[in-house]
């Protein structure tokens, strides 16, 4: 299937990346090139094949549900573009 300008705009919105209107046609064209390449996968017979979930046949380890970390608020906030009074600060979220 072919991606048009509107689909490109919708994908950009979903990805939370601002794309200017005049950049959309070129972006749609790039998507089409890549998706055209990916379409080859339709040639493969995948009937009855399990999708891979883990490349190594290994059970994930369990651990005790205990606190092993914490009490480092200042370290966590140190790299924030805007931190105030022990919190991350962001623009207004609710009206």
């Amino acid at each position, binding site marked *: 299937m072919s991606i048009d300008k509107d689909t490109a705009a919708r994908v950009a919105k979903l990805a939370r990346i601002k794309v200017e209107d005049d950049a959309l046609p070129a972006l749609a064209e790039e998507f089409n090139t890549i998706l055209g390449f990916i379409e080859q996968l339709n040639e493969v017979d995948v009937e009855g094949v*399990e999708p891979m979930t883990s490349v190594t046949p290994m059970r994930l380890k369990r651990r005790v549900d205990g606190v092993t970390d914490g009490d480092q608020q200042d370290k966590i906030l140190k790299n924030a573009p805007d931190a105030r009074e022990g919190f991350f600060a962001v623009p207004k979220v609710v009206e």
Partner: protein
Amino acid sequence: MTDLTSMKIAEARDALRKGNVTSAELTEACLTAIEGAGALNAFVHNTPEIAREQAAAADARIKAGDAPAMCGIPLGIKDLFCTKGVPSQAASNILGGFKPEYESTVTTQLFDAGAVMLGKLNMDEFAMGSSNETSCYGNAVNPWRRGNDDAALTPGGSSGGSASAVSADLCLAATGTDTGGSIRQPAAFTGITGIKPTYGRCSRWGIVAFASSLDQAGPMTKDVRDAAIMLEAMCGHDPKDSTSADLAVPNFEAMLTGDIKGKTIGIPKEYHMDGMPEEIEALWAEGRKMLQDAGANIVDISLPHTKYALPAYYVIAPAEASSNLARYDGVRYGHRATLSAGDGITEMYEKTRAEGFGHEVQRRVMVGTYVLSAGFYDAYYNRARKVRTLIKKDFEDVFAAGVDAILTPATPSAAFGLGEMEDADPVKMYLNDVFTVTVNLAGLPGIAIPAGVDKQGLPLGLQLIGRPWEEGDLLNTAYALEQAAGFVAKPGKWW
């Protein structure tokens, strides 16, 4: 001083232990070499104070005896590794100013072993690229040139800075990471050795995530022995990475006997690509002969789903990237866009990500978003994961039939010129990884070693692919091939 920086890890280790050289001397020599190599743009954040401090500590430890192999060895660290208090920005503007409050497990292990950090190395942004041209720091440059032509060539990518630095003797070795070929392709382009271990061998904790089911760290070194020494120091179980394997790490160096008599080496027919340069075909045939002469049994094999590896990768890797890179939202670290009056949180996300991510990263995040979106998840993402199962099964079948390792070319060409692929469509650039990406999809260990030069004098590499968890055996086969190939060429210094 050039002599010191061109040392290999094994040589330096022995010289350090004998007291013939100090880590401080090695480190100063490297720092001087780095200072004079600005034209390569390999090191992007220098850490001389840390290096001198670590070198002094290493010298004390060596003097006291009982120092590990990596003690006192000056290294470059790819910018993808989080290093405490040192910029770690994955060559992206979105992580501008980010200084982690923690150290990645792999670098922790290296520093605990006494290794010295000279600085952080250039790479493609978020490890997405095959030429180091997507970096926010600008291109890293290959120390190799085509004969007397002074056109700047790519060192490959994404670990382009690591490859350039090791090849140019700015450091003794470097860390790299490999999601689709990002250690092996740049190693091949610069005439050095690079190994991607089995998925799960090295902890991914503290390494900026690109595609979590494919990413693995590994060493980039001047020869196979060094790869064995450094890999051992990087590997091991880490409770902080749930996919890290709880398996003992063997002494890889002790397994380098060079004896491969009776080993079975597979040559996959699907790796003969249309339009592949004659020289690569010839090198591959030579490699086959070298292994045969060393006593290996060579068999022709088939990996029937090879053709579908790249398209599967370009669904799975962007899908995982779109999810991993969702964390760059301008709230917790890195860049936040300047907002206009009335902008809310959505505008903040959208402007921050548009400003912070480069073009290739944006494109991959959006492709990933698309293949995961409602209505397309099954058609693209699930189908790609099924194809991945088949690709892995191809390898399992040949290993079950008795194949110990697989020999392929490392790349479909020698290093190309920076800017030469600018007008090509993105898929053309992706083809660089055609021989390496299958290995990530199947979670296997793979190593690239330099095996010859083309008629322009540029290095060419061969790749060996091993059974899961058998890096020791793989390194030994690579060691035998290295000895037979006898590659000793070095780039002439122009920088």
